[in-house]
């Protein structure tokens, strides 16, 4: 090997070392897709009522975008999700702060809320649907119920973790209760709020899926279950993948936000 070749080899090695994780990951995903496609095209006969392959999924995906049905479904589901999730933020954070800051509130509310959080509240879904009907209200109610708890408990933990020294610092400069809330507690709990949001997103999506599987006429969950009923597997896989992309996008986006909001904190994982 002459020196030019050697230099190129070295550069390649360095590139690989730095991006090793990313490269291996991509290789793995692409490899799997290729294997999947090739297996069902050349090796295993494809039973369309049972399975499908990437090329068909891609085609179905394109169709759904072109016909607009994809956007429509996603929009319907998003509306309910945002309403329920927004309500959870607005209700959950103050409760969490209240519990974290006042010990009596913690003693009174903690057992009750912990019991609720630990229970599969989804079990109430049929009841909620029967009561509120199949429309937006029932969906929003369930999504709210499911996603409010991560906010309550994460904010609660965040408030309890607030550095008491900082509270004393603000007090010593003459700060009042209002100052303590806005200048110490709120900034302190931002990373916990974002972490709570990350957990709540998953639970909120469960809410959407449960209501739409059970009794709905629109929405991405409904689409998935309808495609299943009519054995339209490529469409079903396409819809599932759309949901996966949205879920991953939101979750990883929030993870990034967590590190931005709190560069001074060493990350604590709670997946």
């Amino acid at each position, binding site marked *: 090997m002459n020196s030019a070749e050697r230099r190129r080899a070295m550069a390649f090695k360095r590139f690989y070392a730095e991006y090793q994780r990313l490269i291996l990951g991509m290789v793995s995903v692409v490899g799997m897709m290729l294997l999947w496609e090739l297996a069902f095209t050349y090796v295993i006969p494809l039973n369309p009522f049972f399975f499908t392959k990437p090329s068909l999924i891609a085609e179905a995906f394109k169709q759904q975008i072109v016909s607009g049905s994809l956007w429509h479904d996603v929009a319907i589901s998003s509306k309910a999700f945002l309403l329920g999730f927004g309500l959870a933020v607005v209700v959950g954070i103050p409760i969490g702060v209240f519990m974290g800051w006042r010990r009596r509130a913690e003693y009174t509310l903690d057992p009750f809320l912990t019991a609720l959080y630990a229970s599969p509240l989804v079990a109430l879904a049929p009841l909620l649907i029967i009561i509120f009907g199949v429309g937006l209200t029932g969906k929003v109610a369930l999504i709210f119920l499911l996603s409010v708890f991560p906010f309550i408990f994460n904010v609660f933990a965040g408030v309890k973790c607030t*550095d008491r*020294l*900082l509270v*004393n*610092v*603000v*007090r*010593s*400069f*003459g*700060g009042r209760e209002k*100052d303590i809330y806005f*200048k*110490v507690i709120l*900034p*302190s709990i*931002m990373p916990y709020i974002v972490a709570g949001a990350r957990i709540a997103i998953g639970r909120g999506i469960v809410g959407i899926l449960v209501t739409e599987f059970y009794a709905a006429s629109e929405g991405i969950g409904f689409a998935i279950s309808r495609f299943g009923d009519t054995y339209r597997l490529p469409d079903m896989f396409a819809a599932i993948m759309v949901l996966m992309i949205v879920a991953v996008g939101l979750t990883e986006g929030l993870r990034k936000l967590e590190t931005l909001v*709190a*560069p*001074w904190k060493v990350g604590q994982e709670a997946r």
Partner: protein
Amino acid sequence: MVPCIEARSLTLTFTPKNRDPVTALQGFDLQVSKGEFLSLVGPSGCGKSTFLNVLLGLLKPDSGELSLNGKQIDGPGQERAMVFQEFGLLPWRTVLANVELGLELKGVAPSIRHERALDLIKLVGLERFQNHYPHELSGGMKQRVGLARALATEPEVLLMDEPFAALDAQTRDLMQTELLQIWERTKKTVLFVTHSIEEAAYLSDRVVIMTARPGRMKNVFKIDLPRPRDYEMRLTPEFNDIKAKIWNTLKDELSGKAAGNGI
């Protein structure tokens, strides 16, 4: 001479949950003159930090009197500011925003407090770091921010609770000299709590030795060394004499501890 700070018979007992009550201060007396640099030295748990917190207004004594310039102390006030051992900087604020904190809480207009904060940041030599965050700074730098913040509200009395204890030895020595320089320029009354006899003797006009818990004043030493003081003074025989005298007084309190107070 009217004392700037006067404490008479201060008593304070803590009653923590599920544990025995702890008397931190018992009949504590102290007088501090205006513009004086006074150190409080004593064994661990003798109540020195407690006294500082009472002075700051964060703790209320059970009995006794505490006054500043003749007026009773009744909570935090602008005339007193503290520099904390663990710095206490808000991690989500830049250096500038941290130094402004006291002024901000008092409702000073943004442009004015900006200027004031910048002046102090220059005073402590951190001008280049005004937009950095605390986690990007070293311990010594963080404490300088703490000092700038305390000085920003122009207090009469500066309370310092083992401010250099969390720093390494070299930074500590440097900070001590810097503190003296800043003190000469700003002429505040300083109450300095420390475990280090050397630090107390080097910095102060007077050194107060406290007894083991419950805390009371045991002895006071006047440090007659000329000012401005420099590092070389620490190597002189006079300085060592002073240290020895302080140590002898303190020693009894420490061994009394070992005999059975159980820390």
